C-alpha cells in the first residue's frame, strides 16, 4: 500500500447552479486537463476510483430536508456525496493510505436543516462522510480541518453539539467575506465546547501566516485531540488569484499544508480561480497526499502575488494565544457552562440562503443527559421553492440512551398535536432514518 492515494475525480461537467455562476460546468475543466496532461492517473502511487451514488439514508444521517432532502437535491449531489463515501471505503478497507475526493458540488455551507441552496451548497458532503464513517466503521473521534477561505458554517452547524468531532476552520475574517461568521467565540454548545475552532485571518494572509498558524496552533490541537481520522475540507480559495476572496496563499503553500496535515481523506470544497489556481493547487495537493515530490508545482505567473502585510502575522499570533487558551481549557469551561445552563441550552439563529433568498429562523434546544442528551430544532423559513414552511425536528444522537430517545419522541408527538408545524420529524442520526410524525 505504501503511500498510495485513492483519487475520486468527479468534475460534474453537466452540473451547474446557473450558466455564469462560479459553480458552473467549466469549474474543474482546467484541473482535469492539468491532471491528465501531468499523467497523474498513470502513477502507481495513485489509484483511481469511480464515485458511487450515495443513498438518501446516507444524506439523512447529517441532514433533515424540508419537506424532504430528496426534493432539494439533484443527482449530482448524490454523486459528489457518493464520491466521499467511496473515498472513505477505500481508506477504511486499507486499499489506499489516503484518499482525495476531488468532486463537486461542494458542501460545507449546508447546515443540518436544509431548505435550499446556500453558499453554493445543498448537502454537506464531509458531514455525510463523517456520519457514514461512524455508522459503517465505528470510528469515533474525527477531526475536520477546513482550509477553504470561507467559514464552513454548515459544518460548524452539523457538528456544534458533537464533542467527538473536532472542527477547525481557518478563513478570511467574516467581517470581510461570506458568510460573515466564524469567530473564536463560536466554540461549540456547552457539551461540545472547544471542539469547534474558528481562526479568522486578515485578508492578504499568505503562505507565511498560514504555516505560522498551523505550526503554532493547529498542529498542537490535533496532537492533543488524538483523532482516529483527519479529514480535510480542501477548499482552494485562499489562493492569491481567487476572484471571490482576498488571501495570498500559493499552490506551494497549499501543498506543504497538505503534506504537514497528512489527512486521511480530503474533500474538495470551494476555489474559483479555475484557470490560475485550481490546476496547480489540486496537482500540489494530490502529489503531497501521494507522498510524491510537489516542489515543482509553481503557478506560471506569480506576479499577482502580494507580499503579506505585517498585521497578518500579528493576527495569527493573537489567534494562537487566544484560541490556544480556549482549546486547552475546554474541559474546565465545559463543566462551568453545563452547570450554568442547568441541563437545557438554547440558541436562536437567523440563516440566510444567499442563492435563493430564503430567510430561516431556528430555535435549537439541547437537553443534556449523562449519555450526551438529544436536541430539537424549530425552523421557519420564508421564500423557499415550496413557499413558506415550518418544521419541528427532534434529533436523536448516536449514543442517546433509551430514556432520551423516548423523550425526543414524546416531544415530537406533543408538537405534532399542537398543530403549530407543517412538518414534524424525528431524525435518527445512527441510521439516517427520518420518521415523519
Amino acid at each position: 500500500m505504501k503511500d498510495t492515494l485513492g483519487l475520486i475525480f468527479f468534475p460534474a461537467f453537466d452540473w451547474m447552479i446557473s450558466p455564469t455562476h462560479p459553480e458552473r460546468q467549466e469549474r474543474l475543466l482546467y484541473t482535469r486537463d492539468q491532471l491528465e496532461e501531468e499523467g497523474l492517473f498513470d502513477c502507481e502511487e495513485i489509484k483511481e476510483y469511480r464515485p458511487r451514488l450515495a443513498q438518501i439514508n446516507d444524506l439523512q444521517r447529517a441532514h433533515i430536508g424540508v419537506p424532504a432532502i430528496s426534493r432539494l437535491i439533484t443527482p449530482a449531489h448524490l454523486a459528489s456525496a457518493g464520491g466521499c463515501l467511496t473515498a472513505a471505503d477505500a481508506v477504511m478497507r486499507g486499499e489506499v493510505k489516503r484518499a482525495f475526493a476531488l468532486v463537486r458540488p461542494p458542501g460545507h455551507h449546508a447546515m443540518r436543516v436544509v431548505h435550499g441552496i446556500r453558499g453554493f451548497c445543498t448537502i454537506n458532503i464531509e458531514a455525510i462522510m463523517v456520519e457514514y464513517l461512524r455508522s459503517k466503521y465505528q470510528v469515533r473521534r474525527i477531526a475536520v480541518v477546513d482550509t477553504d477561505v470561507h467559514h464552513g458554517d454548515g459544518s460548524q452547524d452539523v457538528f456544534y453539539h458533537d464533542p467527538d468531532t473536532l472542527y477547525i476552520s481557518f478563513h478570511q475574517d467574516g467581517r470581510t467575506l461570506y458568510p460573515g461568521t466564524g469567530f473564536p467565540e463560536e466554540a461549540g454548545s456547552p457539551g461540545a465546547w472547544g471542539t469547534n475552532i474558528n481562526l479568522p485571518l486578515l485578508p492578504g494572509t499568505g503562505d507565511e501566516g498560514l504555516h505560522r498558524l498551523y505550526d503554532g496552533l493547529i498542529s498542537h490541537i490535533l496532537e492533543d485531540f488524538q483523532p482516529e481520522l483527519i479529514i480535510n475540507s480542501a477548499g482552494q480559495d485562499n489562493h492569491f488569484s481567487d476572484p471571490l476572496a482576498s488571501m495570498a496563499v500559493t499552490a506551494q503553500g497549499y501543498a506543504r499544508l497538505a503534506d504537514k496535515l497528512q489527512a486521511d481523506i480530503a474533500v474538495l470544497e470551494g476555489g474559483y480561480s479555475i484557470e490560475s489556481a485550481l490546476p496547480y493547487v489540486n496537482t500540489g495537493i494530490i502529489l503531497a497526499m501521494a507522498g510524491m515530490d510537489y516542489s515543482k508545482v509553481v503557478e506560471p505567473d506569480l506576479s499577482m502575488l502580494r507580499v503579506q502585510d505585517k498585521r497578518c502575522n500579528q493576527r495569527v499570533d493573537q489567534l494562537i494565544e487566544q484560541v490556544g487558551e480556549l482549546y486547552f481549557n475546554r474541559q474546565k469551561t465545559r463543566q462551568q457552562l453545563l452547570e450554568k445552563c442547568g441541563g437545557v441550552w438554547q440558541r436562536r439563529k437567523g440563516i440566510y440562503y444567499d442563492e435563493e433568498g430564503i430567510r430561516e429562523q431556528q430555535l435549537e434546544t439541547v437537553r443534556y443527559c449523562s449519555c450526551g442528551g438529544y436536541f430539537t430544532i424549530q425552523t421557519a423559513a420564508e421564500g423557499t421553492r415550496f413557499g413558506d414552511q415550518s418544521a419541528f425536528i427532534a434529533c436523536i444522537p448516536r449514543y442517546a440512551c433509551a430514556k432520551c430517545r423516548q423523550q425526543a419522541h414524546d416531544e415530537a408527538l406533543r408538537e405534532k398535536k399542537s398543530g403549530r408545524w407543517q412538518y414534524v420529524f424525528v431524525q435518527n442520526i445512527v441510521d439516517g432514518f427520518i420518521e415523519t410524525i
Partner: protein
Amino acid sequence: MRLSGYAVMTGSLFLSQAGIYCGGREYYIGHKMIRKYEGGADMLLGIDVGGTFTDAVIISKQEITAQAKVPTNHDDVLVSVLQALDRVLTDIDVSRLSRVVISSTIVTNALTEDRVEPVFLAVMTGPGMNVKGRFPVEPYYVSGYVDHRGKITAQIDWSRHRDLLQRKGSGSCAVSGKFAVREPQNEYQLKQELKKCGYQKIFLGSELSGELNFIRRTNSAYFAAAVYKVFDKFCQKVKLALAQRHIAVPVHILKADGGTLPLEAALNQPVEAVFTGPAASVLGIEALAAPELNSISLDVGGTTTDIAFWEQGLPLMAKKGALLKSYPTAVRSFHMRSIGIGGDSRITVTGDGYQVGPVREGPAAAVGGKTATLSDALIVAGYVNFGDEKKALQAVAAFGGEPKQEAEKIVQAAVKVITATISEMLAEWAKQPVYTVDDVIRGTEFVPQQLIGVGGGAQGLVAAVGKAMGLPVEIPAGAMVANAIGAALARPTLSAGLRADTTDGFYIIPESGKRQPLPRGFNMKKAETLLTQWLQQQAEKWQLPAQETELISSEHFRTIHGYYDTGDIYSLRMQLKPGILHKVHGREVEL
C-alpha cells in the same frame, strides 16, 4: 473472363466447405484458372509474423484464396516475411494484388531484445510533477512552458542552454513539451535547433499523439526514436524485395490499434507498429466471426491465450495507451491481455495443486509429446476429444492420484488464472473516467453475454472457462491463419482531435501541428466539418480508401470571466471508422 472468375469462386467455395489438404503447408486452389485471370486487382495479401510461425494469406472477394505457413526466423524477420510471401504467391498473378499488409514483430523484438538506438530526449516540463524516473532515459530539461489553455507562459530561454546548442548529434532524437498539443511552437523551435546539431530524424511528442498526457507522449516519442533505425531498415528491405517481385501496390504496416498505415507514414510513427500480433488476432476474429453479443474472445494458442472484449461486433479499444518496457505510452491498442497459458503449456506440481504454464512443454502426449500438457488434461477430463486418449491418460497418470480427478484439477488451475485475468480486465474497463452525472448513473460496466473461442487449443479450454463463468461458449470455424487474415483485411485508421478556444480566436488540430484562426460563426458543427475535412485530406495524402468518419468524443464549455461570457471551448475527436474491410467466410483447414 467471366468463366474464369466463376471458377475461382467455385474453387474457394470448395475450400471453405470441405477444406483441401494438399500436403506440405500450402493450399492451392484453382490455380490454373487464376493464372489466366485478367480482371482488376482484387486480392489482398496479409502477412503475420508470429512467435512460432509466419503466416501469409491471400483474400479475394471474401474468400481465402491461398495461405502459407513457414517457421519464423527470429534472427532475421525479413527472411520469414519473404519466404511466406513467395510461398503464398507461388501460383498467383501479382498484378491481381491490390494491397500488402505486414504485421511483424520487428518493433516488438527490437524493444524486448534491446536492439535500439540510444536516444537523446529533450523535455519542457514547466511546473508540475517531478518527472524524474518516468522516462526510459534521463532527459535534458529545456526551459519554456505552455499552460493548459495553450498559452505560452514562458519562451525557451536559450541563454540557459548553450551546451544544448553546441551538441553534436546524429540519427534520431525525441522532443516533448507539456501541453504541446495545445501549442506546439516551443517544440518546433527546439526541433529546429536540434536539426542544426545534426539530428536527422526528430520525433515530437505532439506529432505522435494529439491527446493530453505529457508522460505518455514523451515516451512514445522516445520509443519512436529508439526503434526508428531498425524499422527504417526493415521498410527499405521490404520495399526492395517487393520491387524485385514486381509488386507495385501500396504496402501497409499493421499497427497496435488494428489499423494500417502506408510504409512512408509508418516511418513517422514507428512505435505504433508494436504488439501487432494480438491486434491481428483480434482482426482475424472480426473477419471470421464478429460476435454481435457482448463477448469475450479467447484465442488459445500453444503457448499463450489472448483475451479481448467485444461489443456490437467490434473489439473494444483500451482506454489508455500501451505499456512499453513498463513505461506508459500513447500507443493505442485493443483492450486485451495475453497470458502464458496454452494447449502446450507445461504442468507443474505446486504445494497445493498445479500450475499451468507459462512455459511451453511441447506437443501434447496425445499427439506424440513426451509429458502431459494442458491439452492432455483437457482430453482426460473430457472437455475435448482428439489424439490418442490412452497416451494422454498415461501422461496425466504420471502425476499420481486418480487421473480423471487430477486432470480436472489441472484444468481448473488454468481456468482460475484465466477467469482472474478476465475479472481484472472487467474491473479495468469499469474504471473509466467519470466526468458527468450521466456517466455515474449509467455506469460503464461491460457485461459479457458469451465467450468466443478460437485457436488450436480453444475447444476444450474455453468450454471449461465458460462453465466456470456460467456463460455460453461459441467456437466459430476459425482459421489457422486468422492473424494473417486479420492483417490482410485491416483498414487504415486515422484519428485526430480539434480544440477551439474562441477567446483567443484560434483552433488547433494537434495531429497537424497547425494553429489556425477561427472562421466566422464557429460552432460544434463547423468544428466537426473542419476536422472531417482534415482527416479526409490526410486519407487522400496517404492514398487510403475513402472511409466514413465518426465522432469519438466531444465537449463544449462556455468560458466565463468575472461573471461575463468570454467565449467557448470546443474539443472533439474523430476518426476514420475502424475495423476490417469485409468479412470472410473461410472454414478451418486442418493442418
